[in-house]
């Protein structure tokens, strides 16, 4: 009974709010590295606005979600509103929620899909404390005119090395959505990330 007394509401205007979240996600993945702004956090939900809204938009009973920090209240909340189950291992997750990326499993531990069905890969949603102030990186690839510079903080030292392996495995590999409160940045598997020239 304790879980039902603390159950937080979902989206109040589900149709329009999920559509605008989906649009923001499409833009984020079509323009990697561009910061998109979604709506504020949901009352009573201990997740950033962008992350919570993406979850309610994307999840359903066929998408197991892996939680880096398993919070029973949040898991029950997502289950109640979307029907999404909890994935026991990262490799079984359609979506993986990472709130402390420094101590997260390696990218290779998540589902990369198969050569025949690369769409059965995990999508990682990573909450960062900020979207700037970290090590400079240079992003290139489809959806980026020339290059884009980002400095995402809090990533582990070998994160970008792992990302290069992930990128090289195309068409397999994971996609990442970085979120920070109500903002999101897409990093699809097609994007090449390298240290900026001259460094």
């Amino acid at each position: 009974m304790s879980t039902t007394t603390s159950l937080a509401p979902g989206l109040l205007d589900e149709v329009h709010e999920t559509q605008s979240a989906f649009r923001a996600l499409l833009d984020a993945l079509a323009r990697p590295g561009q910061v998109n702004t979604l709506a504020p956090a949901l009352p009573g939900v201990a997740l950033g606005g962008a992350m919570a809204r993406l979850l309610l938009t994307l999840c359903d009973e066929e998408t197991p979600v892996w939680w880096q920090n398993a919070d029973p209240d949040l898991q029950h909340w997502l289950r109640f509103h979307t029907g999404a189950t909890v994935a026991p291992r990262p490799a079984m997750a359609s979506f993986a929620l990472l709130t402390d990326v420094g101590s997260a499993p390696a990218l290779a531990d998540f589902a990369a899909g198969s050569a025949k069905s690369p769409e059965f890969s995990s999508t990682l949603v990573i909450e960062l404390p900020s979207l700037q102030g970290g090590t400079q990186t240079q992003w290139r690839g489809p959806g980026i005119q020339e290059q884009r510079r980002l400095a995402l903080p809090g990533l582990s030292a070998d994160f970008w090395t792992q990302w290069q392996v992930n990128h090289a495995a195309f068409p397999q590999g994971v996609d990442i959505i970085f979120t920070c409160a109500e903002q999101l940045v897409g990093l699809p598997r097609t994007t090449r990330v390298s240290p900026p020239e001259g460094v």
Partner: protein
Amino acid sequence: MTNNTASGELSARRTWLAVLARASLSELEAKRVLLGELPALQQVRPPEVGMLMLRGRVGGTGNPFNLGEASVVRCAVRLGNGALGVAYALGRDKRRAELAALFDALLQDPAWHDELQRTLIEPLQAQQAQARDSRRREVAPSKVEFFTLVRGDA
């Protein structure tokens, strides 16, 4: 012991949820007016309409088959900091589901339970049983007995 009480509570709740699901809007609305002021209503899941597959039994073996789909409306609400009230009802009447969820939330509150059980659930339950009973008696004469014809070549 605890288990028994828990399952007893569960079946009691199941009973009143079934009664509320069959209650008409006017019955629920009439009772709601009598309650007066209540704590703020929070819609945890605003009333939403969906579809439900109805299954029937067919053939001599009773295999299940999909009879068709029915509209159903569901809702979850909380009053103040109380328990979560839920409702499912056939049809597309959102207000009816919202009121049923509200009464479910109140019925889980010990301060309200006995009064609502006495003045709302029990009368409705009796009325629904009576309606079902009279309907059953109405259609009973139309029952047809089928006999298997055995070929008499023995």
